[in-house]
C-alpha cells in the first residue's frame, strides 16, 4: 500500500459528508421536535393567528413542527452545499454561522408566513432567530466533532494496518535471508564436508588394501572389509582402520545428512514435488504411502519447474514434514496418503494417515507454529479426524503468491 494513512480518498469524503449530514440532521431534528413540544405543551404559547379563538393543540403542534422542520431542511441543504466538514477552523466558523443563521432566518420567515408571529413582532422574531442560530451552531459543532472522531479512528486503523504490513514484509525479508544462510550451510555440509568424508574413507580403504597386500599377498579388491584377528598386531591395526572407516561412513551417512536436512530440506531447490518425495524416502519399507500429485502441480513444481518462492515452498514442505512426523510419532500410522493440488492461486495439500488419530483435541506445537506462518501469507491449516473417522487428516492451503 502506497497511500499515507491520513490521505483522503473519494470514498472517505463521501463517508465524512454522510456522517456530518446525519449527525447534524439528528441533533437539530431533536431540537426542532423538542422546542415544538415545549412551546405547545409546557409553555402553552399560542400563535397569533389562533389567539381569540378556541386553541386546537394538534394544529398548533403541526404549525410549529413545520416551522422548525424548515430550519432543519435549510440547515441540511447548507451543509450539503458548503461542506463545512472539509474546511479548516476559519472555514468551519464562517460556513457554520452562515448555515445556522440561514436556517434560523428561514424558520423565522416560515413562522411569520404561517402566522405564528405577525410581521410587526420584531423583538420576538429577533429572539427566535438568535436562539435558532445557537441551536443550529451547537448541532453543527456536534456533527463536526463526530466526523473528526471518525476520521481519526480511520487514520489510526490504516496506520496500524500499514504497520502490520511493514512488519510482515520485514519478517519475510528476514526469513528469506535466514533461508539463504541455511541453504549455504546445508550445501556446505552436503557437498564439501560430505565429499571430504568420502575421500577420507577412500584413503583409509587404500591403506587397508595396501596393508593386506603387503601382509598376505592376497589379490586386492577381493574383500572390502578387513576381518582381523587380535593375535596379529598388523591385522588388528587393519581392523582398527576398518572400524574408523565404518565410523566415518556412519557419521557422514547419519549425522551430517540429518543435520543438513534439518537446516534445509533435501531437494527443496528442485521443486516442492521432489522435496516432498525426499521426505518419504527414508521411511522404512513397513510404512505404506501414496504420493498423489495433480498434473497442475507436476507442471508447476516438478521436473525442474519452480513457481513458488523458496519461502513458500519451504512452508509447503514443512507442512507435509510436520504431518508426517506427527502421524508416525503420535498416531503410530502405517499408511499415509498425500494429495497435492493447485487451484485458485493456491496449493492445497491433504495428508491422511491410518494412525490412532486425535485422542483429544490437542493443539500440537508444530502445527501452531505453521499456522502462525500461514496467517502471515493468507493460508491456513486444519488438523482433524480422517474422513472415515479413523486416523488423522491435515489439510492446508498455501497461496502461491502470484495472485
Amino acid at each position, binding site marked *: 500500500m502506497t497511500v499515507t494513512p491520513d490521505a483522503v480518498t473519494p470514498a472517505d469524503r463521501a463517508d465524512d459528508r454522510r456522517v456530518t449530514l446525519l449527525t447534524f440532521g439528528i441533533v437539530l431534528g431533536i431540537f426542532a421536535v423538542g422546542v415544538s413540544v415545549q412551546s405547545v405543551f409546557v409553555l402553552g404559547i399560542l400563535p397569533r393567528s389562533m389567539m381569540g379563538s378556541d386553541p386546537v393543540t394538534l394544529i398548533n403542534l403541526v404549525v410549529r413542527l413545520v416551522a422548525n422542520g424548515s430550519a432543519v431542511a435549510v440547515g441540511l441543504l447548507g451543509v450539503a452545499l458548503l461542506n463545512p466538514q472539509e474546511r479548516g477552523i476559519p472555514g468551519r466558523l464562517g460556513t457554520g454561522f452562515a448555515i445556522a443563521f440561514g436556517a434560523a432566518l428561514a424558520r423565522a420567515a416560515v413562522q411569520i408566513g404561517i402566522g405564528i408571529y405577525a410581521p410587526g413582532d420584531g423583538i420576538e422574531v429577533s429572539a427566535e432567530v438568535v436562539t435558532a442560530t445557537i441551536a443550529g451552531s451547537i448541532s453543527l459543532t456536534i456533527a463536526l466533532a463526530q466526523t473528526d472522531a471518525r476520521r481519526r479512528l480511520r487514520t489510526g486503523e490504516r496506520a496500524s494496518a500499514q504497520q502490520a504490513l511493514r512488519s510482515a514484509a520485514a519478517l519475510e525479508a528476514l526469513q528469506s535471508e535466514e533461508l539463504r544462510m541455511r541453504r549455504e550451510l546445508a*550445501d556446505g555440509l*552436503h*557437498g564439501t564436508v*560430505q*565429499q571430504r568424508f*568420502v*575421500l577420507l*574413507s577412500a584413503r583409509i580403504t587404500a591403506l587397508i588394501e595396501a596393508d593386506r597386500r603387503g601382509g598376505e599377498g592376497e589379490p586386492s*579388491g577381493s574383500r*572390502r572389509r578387513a576381518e582381523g584377528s587380535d593375535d596379529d598386531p598388523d591385522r588388528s591395526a587393519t581392523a582398527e582402520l576398518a572400524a574408523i572407516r565404518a565410523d566415518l*561412513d556412519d557419521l*557422514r551417512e547419519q549425522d551430517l*545428512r540429518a543435520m543438513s536436512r534439518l537446516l534445509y530440506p*533435501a*531437494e527443496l*531447490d*528442485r*521443486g516442492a*514435488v*521432489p522435496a516432498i*518425495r*525426499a521426505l518419504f*524416502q*527414508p*521411511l*522404512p*519399507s*513397513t*510404512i*505404506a*504411502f501414496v504420493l498423489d500429485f495433480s498434473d497442475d502441480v507436476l507442471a508447476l513444481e*516438478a*521436473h*525442474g519447474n519452480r513457481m513458488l518462492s523458496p519461502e513458500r515452498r519451504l512452508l509447503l514442505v514443512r507442512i507435509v514434514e510436520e504431518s508426517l512426523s506427527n502421524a508416525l510419532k503420535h498416531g503410530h500410522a*502405517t*499408511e499415509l496418503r498425500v494429495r497435492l493440488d493447485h487451484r485458485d492461486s493456491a496449493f492445497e495439500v491433504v495428508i491422511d494417515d491410518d494412525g490412532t488419530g486425535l485422542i483429544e483435541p490437542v493443539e500440537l506445537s508444530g502445527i501452531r507454529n505453521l499456522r502462525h506462518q500461514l496467517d502471515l501469507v493468507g493460508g491456513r491449516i486444519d488438523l482433524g479426524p480422517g474422513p472415515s473417522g479413523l486416523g488423522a487428516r491435515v489439510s492446508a492451503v498455501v497461496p502461491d503468491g502470484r495472485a
Partner: protein
Amino acid sequence: MAVVEDQALFRQLLVTGLDAAPGVSVSVAAADAASARRTLLHEGTDLAVRSIDVAVLDVQLGDGSGIDLGVDLRAANPALGIVLLSATDSLDVLLDLPRTITHGWSYLSKTSALSLPALLRAIEVSAEGRSVFDPELVARRRPRRGTGLSRLSTRQYEVLRLLAEGLSNAGIASRLGLAPRSVDNHIAGIYAELGLASGGVVNPRVAAALRFLDESAAS
C-alpha cells in the same frame, strides 16, 4: 563425452581414467553447471552437446543440481546418455524426471564400491538408452508394504533387481543360472504385475526399473 564434477581431484581422476579406456574420449570437462551450460549449450554453428554420446554428471554441483543440468542437456540432445554420480545415495531423485526422458539415465554412488569398470559399463548402457542403478544401493532396497513390488515372487523380485542394475536378459539369466527363456517369462510376469504390460507403456524396461525405485525403501 562430457564430465561435469566440482571436485577438482575427482574430476581429473575421472577424465584420466575414462580417456585411457578404449573407445572413450572426454571432449568436455567442467567444474560447475554454469560453465557446462556455456560450453555444451552455447548457440553457435552447432550445439556442442550434440557431438557427445554420454555426460557424466555430479548430482551436487557447486552451483546447482546435476539432474537439472542433465534435463537441459537431454532436451538439446535426445539421444544423450546420462550417468549421475552422487555422494548422497538418493536414487529417488530419478523419480522426478520428466516422464518422456526417463530412458538412458544411470545413477552410481560415489560411496559404494565405484570402480572404473563399473562406470564404463554404466556409460555404455546409458549410451544405449538403458539404465544402470548402483548395484550396492539397489541391493539395500526392500519392497514397500502395499505396493505392486511387494506382490512379486522372490524370483521375480530378483530378476527385477538385476534389471534395475542394468543387466540384459542374457546377463540376468547367466547371473541367476536360469535359461534365457525363463528370464523372458519372469519379465513378462513382472510387467503384468506392475501394470506395464499394456501397449501404452513406451519403454516398459525403464518404467519397471523406476517402479522398482518408487515402490521400495532404502534400508
